[in-house]
C-alpha cells in the first residue's frame, strides 16, 4: 500500500481533473517547474496551455481566471504564499464571488484558488505565515481546509468541479501528512460535510486543517481521563452545522482548535452558532491565534502564537471541569 503524502494527493487530484475535463487548467507562478510540488510533472503531461506559468501579476491572473471561467473554463490558480490572497481579495471577493448573483444567474465562475502551504512555515515570518480562511468564510466564498491526504484529494477535486469559486487552503503543517490509501480509493469529497475522525462522548473538539492531527494526539493523550470526539469540518464555509449538532448533541461540550486569529475567526462562528442553537453543559472554548496576530520570525516566538497541543489539553480539561455535569 502506498504511503500517500498530502502534497502528492493534491498533485494527483490536479492530474486526474486535468485528464478528466479539458476545461480544467492550472495557472500560477512557477507551476511548470512545480516549485511547490503540487504541479510537479503536470506541464510535461498536459502541456503549457494547460499548465500556465504567469508573471508576478497576481491581480491580473486572478481576474484572468474569472474571465476564463466566464467563458466556460475551470481554472485552478495556485498561490505560493497565503498573503497573496490579500493582493487578490478584490478579484475573488468582489468579482468572482459576486458575478452569479449580480448577473441574475447568467454567469458562473468555477475557479479554484489553491494555497499551497498556508499558515506558519516556521522561519518565513510575518508576511508569509497568515492563515486567512476565516476572511473568505466571512465574505461567503466557499473555503476548504483539508486535513488528510485523502481529503486533500477529494476536496480539491470537488472544488474544481464546483460551479462557484472555492478557496482551498493546504496548511503547511499538513503537507507532510501521509495516509495509507490506494490511489483507486481516492474519491471526490462533498463540500460542507464534516468528518468525525475519532468518536468520543464527553467533549467535541472542532479541529481545522493540520490541527486535526494535533487534536487526535491530544485526544489519545487524554484518553484515560476524557473521551474526546474530534470533528473536522473539512469545509470552513459552508460549514456542516448538522454534523456538528450531532456531535455536540452527544458530548454537550465544545472546544474549537483553529489556526486563525481569535477575533471574528471560525472559532468565533462555531461558538456563536453553538450559543444560538446548541445546549451546552459548560461554556465552550477556543484555542486559536491571538487577536490580530503577526507571526514573529524567531522560531520560539512563532510557536508561541500558534495554537498548540498544550493549549488544547488545557482547554479540554477546563471545559470538562466547568458547568453542569451531563
Amino acid at each position, binding site marked *: 500500500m502506498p504511503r500517500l503524502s498530502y502534497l502528492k494527493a493534491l498533485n494527483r487530484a490536479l492530474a486526474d481533473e486535468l485528464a478528466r475535463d479539458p476545461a480544467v487548467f492550472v495557472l500560477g507562478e512557477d507551476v511548470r517547474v512545480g516549485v511547490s510540488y503540487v504541479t510537479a510533472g503536470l506541464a510535461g503531461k498536459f502541456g503549457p496551455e494547460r499548465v500556465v506559468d504567469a508573471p508576478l501579476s497576481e491581480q491580473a491572473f486572478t*481576474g484572468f481566471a474569472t474571465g476564463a471561467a466566464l467563458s466556460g473554463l475551470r481554472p485552478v490558480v495556485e498561490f505560493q504564499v497565503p498573503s497573496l490572497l490579500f493582493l487578490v481579495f478584490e478579484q475573488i471577493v468582489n468579482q468572482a464571488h459576486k458575478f452569479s*448573483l449580480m*448577473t441574475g444567474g447568467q454567469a458562473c465562475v468555477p475557479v479554484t484558488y489553491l494555497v499551497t502551504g498556508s499558515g506558519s512555515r516556521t522561519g518565513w515570518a510575518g508576511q508569509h505565515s497568515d492563515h486567512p480562511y476565516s476572511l473568505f468564510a466571512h465574505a461567503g466564498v466557499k473555503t476548504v481546509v483539508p486535513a488528510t491526504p485523502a481529503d486533500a484529494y477529494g476536496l480539491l477535486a470537488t472544488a474544481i468541479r464546483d*460551479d*462557484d469559486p472555492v478557496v482551498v487552503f493546504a496548511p503547511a503543517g499538513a503537507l507532510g501528512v501521509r495516509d495509507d490509501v490506494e490511489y483507486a480509493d481516492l474519491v471526490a469529497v462533498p463540500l460542507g460535510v464534516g468528518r468525525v475522525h475519532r468518536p468520543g462522548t464527553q467533549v467535541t473538539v472542532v479541529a481545522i486543517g493540520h490541527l486535526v492531527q494535533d487534536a487526535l494526539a491530544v485526544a489519545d493523550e487524554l484518553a484515560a481521563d476524557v473521551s474526546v470526539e474530534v470533528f473536522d469540518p473539512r469545509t470552513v464555509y459552508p460549514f456542516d452545522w448538522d454534523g456538528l449538532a450531532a456531535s455536540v448533541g452527544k458530548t454537550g461540550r465544545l472546544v474549537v482548535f483553529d489556526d486563525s486569529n481569535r477575533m471574528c475567526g471560525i472559532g468565533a462562528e462555531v461558538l456563536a452558532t453553538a450559543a444560538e442553537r446548541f445546549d451546552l453543559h459548560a461554556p465552550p472554548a477556543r484555542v486559536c491565534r491571538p487577536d490580530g496576530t503577526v507571526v514573529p520570525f524567531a522560531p520560539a516566538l512563532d510557536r508561541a502564537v500558534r495554537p498548540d497541543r498544550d493549549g488544547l489539553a488545557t482547554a479540554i480539561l477546563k471545559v470538562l471541569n466547568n458547568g453542569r455535569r451531563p
Partner: protein
Amino acid sequence: MARATDTRVGLYRTVRLIRRFEQRAVDLVDTGDIVGGIHPYTGQEAIAAGVCAALRDDDVITSTHRGHGHVLAKGADPARVLAELAGRDTGLNRGRGGSMHAADFAMGILGANAIVGANAPITVGAAWAARHSGSDRVAVSFFGDGAVNQGVLLESLNLAALWRLPVLFVCENNGYATTLPVGEAVAGTITGRGEAFGIPSVTVDGADPVAVLTAARTAVRRARAGDGPSLIECLAYRFDAHHTWEHRARMRYRSDEEVHSGRLRDPVTIQGARLADAERERVDAEVESTLDEAVAFALAGPHPDPGGALDHLYASGLRPRQGGDH
C-alpha cells in the same frame, strides 16, 4: 435593436439610440424610477458605436460603471437594459445588477463593472479562453482615462501582450476621472503605456464613430490574425455629470466655457451630418419609438420578489443562512 452596424445609417442609429437612452434614463432617475442614479455616457457614444460595429456577434466585451453605451452598441435589448436600471425582474440581470452591472452573456456582454480597471483582466482571460478553444473571437475591454492608473489594468496589458491575445483595449479619454483632470493623473501618455508593453497604440477622435470604427477594424483584424492586442485611445468629452448625483451637488471642476466647447464636438451631430435630413429623421423617429416601448416595458415590469433576494448567490444552489434566523 441589434449590435451597431458599420454603415453610415447604422452608426448614426447607435449613437442616437445611446444618446436618447441616456437622456431618458436621466429622466427616470429624476422621477425616482431608477434608484441610485447613473453615470451618463452622453458625449462618448461614438466610441461604443464605432468599436462594436467592428465586431462580430460572438465577440465579447466587458464594460465599466459608465456602461450603457457599450451594452446597447453590442446589441442588448434597450427595453431589458432599462428594466434592469429600474430594478425589475424583467431586466437583463433580473434586477440584481443595475446600471453598473448590466450583462447579457447571450450577446457576448460579460458585464459592466463597478470597479475601475477590474474588467481588464477578465477580458484578457476571455480572450485566452477563446484562443484556447480554437475560436478567432476577440475580446474588448472598455475603460476610462482614470483606469490607466490602476495596477491591475497595467498588469493586464502585460499579460495580453506577452501571450499575444486577441484583445482590444479601448480607453475612453474623456478628460477626467470624476473630478481629476487626466493631466494631473497620468504621467506620460496613454498610448505610451500601451507601447511600453509592445502593444500597437493609437489615438483617435472619439467623437467620430467613423474614426473609431476605422481604428477598431485594424485592431480587430490584428487580433483575429493572431497578432495580439491593440490599444485605442479615444478622445472624447463627457457632456453630462460624472454621475447623476452631480446634478444636485455644487461641484466645480470644469469651467462653463470648457463644458460648452467640449460639447461642440457632438458624435450625434457629427454622424448625423452624414445623413440626409429625411434619413436622419426617420432614424430618430425609429429610435424614439424603440425607447417609448423600452420605457413602457421597463416600468411595466414586476419588481423582484424580496423572498428571492439571494437567488443565484451560488451557482451551485447553496442556500446561505439568513441573517435573522437563530
